[in-house]
C-alpha cells in the first residue's frame, strides 16, 4: 500500500504497518468527534511516526497514486474539519 503524508511525501508500507495505522485512525476519529485536539494531534503524530519509521519513501518523481492520505497534525481542529467538509481546506487548483 502507498500512503501519503500530506505536506511531506509518499511511502510504501506493509500490512502490519497498515493494521497499526487503522487502529490509530480509529482513535483519531474518536478524538475528532470528541473535539479533543491534543488527542487528535497525538494520534496523527503517531501515525506519521509509524509511516516514517516502517515505510519506504518513494522517489519525488514517482507518479503512483496513493491508497491512503494522512492529514498533518499541525492543522487546527477547525482546519481538520474544513478538510473533510464539502468545500474543503484544499484550495481549488489553478484553472
Amino acid at each position: 500500500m502507498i500512503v501519503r503524508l500530506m505536506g511531506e511525501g509518499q511511502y510504501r508500507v506493509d500490512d502490519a504497518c497498515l493494521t497499526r495505522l487503522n487502529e490509530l485512525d480509529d482513535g483519531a476519529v474518536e478524538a475528532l468527534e470528541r473535539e479533543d485536539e491534543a488527542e487528535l494531534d497525538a494520534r496523527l503524530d503517531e501515525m506519521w511516526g509509524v509511516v516514517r519509521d516502517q515505510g519506504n519513501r518513494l522517489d519525488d518523481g514517482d507518479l503512483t497514486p496513493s491508497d491512503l492520505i494522512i492529514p498533518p497534525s499541525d492543522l487546527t481542529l477547525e482546519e481538520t474539519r474544513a478538510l473533510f467538509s464539502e468545500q474543503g481546506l484544499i484550495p481549488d487548483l489553478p484553472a
Partner: protein
Amino acid sequence: MAGLMGRATTVVKAKFSKLLDNAEDPNETLDYSYEQQLTLLQNVKRGVADVVTSKKRLQLQTTQLEQSLLKLETQARAALAAGREDLARAALERKTTTQEQLRGLDEQVKGLEAQQEKLIASERQLSAKIEAFRSQKEVIKAQYSAAEAQVRIGEAATGIGEQMADTGLAIQRARDKTEDMQARAGAMDELIASGTLEDFTSDKTQLDRELEQISSQSQVDSELARLKGELGAGAERKELRP
C-alpha cells in the same frame, strides 16, 4: 463512519478528478494537466517569495526593536541622573513591553521559517513529479492506443493530481500565515513609529494584565535600583559641588 485517512483520500482525489472532467480526449487531458501543473509551480515559487519577504520584514523590525531597547535604557539612565525617577520608570516600562514584543517576533520568524522549508520541499517534489509527468506524457502519446492511454493517463494524472492538491494546501497555508504576519507587522510598524508599544489588540483578560503589571513592576523596580546603584557615585560627586 470512514476513518480520517479514508476521508482525506476521498477529498483529495475528488478535487482533482473534478478538474480532469473538463477534458476528455487523452492527449488533451495530458496537455491540460501539464499546463495546470506549470501554473501551480509558478504559484509555489511566488508563495516562497512571499514568505521570505514577510520574514525579512519581521527581521527588520527585530533590529529596530533592539535599537529602541538601547535607546530606552539610555533615556532611563539620563532621566535618573536628572532626578526624574518618574520618567525613568516610564522608560523602563516601555523597555519591558518592547522585550515582550521581541520575544513574540522571534516566535513569528521561527514559524515563517518552518513554513518556508515546507514550501520549498513541496516545490521540489512538485518539480520532480512534473518532470516525470512530462516525459511519460510523450511516451503515452507516442506508444499507446487511445484505450490504453486512457488508463495510463488516469494513473499518472491521479498521482500528480494528489501532489498538486497537497502542494496547493501548502501554499494556501503559507499564504494565510503570511497575510496574518503582514497585518501584525503593519500594526507593529505603527507602534514603532508612534513610539508607543502598548498592545491594544491583545485579547488578554484584566487579570492577565494585572498579573503582568505586577511582574513588569518588579522588573522596573529592580532595574531602577540597578541604575541608581550605578549612578550612586556620580550623584554624590554632584552634591559636593557648590
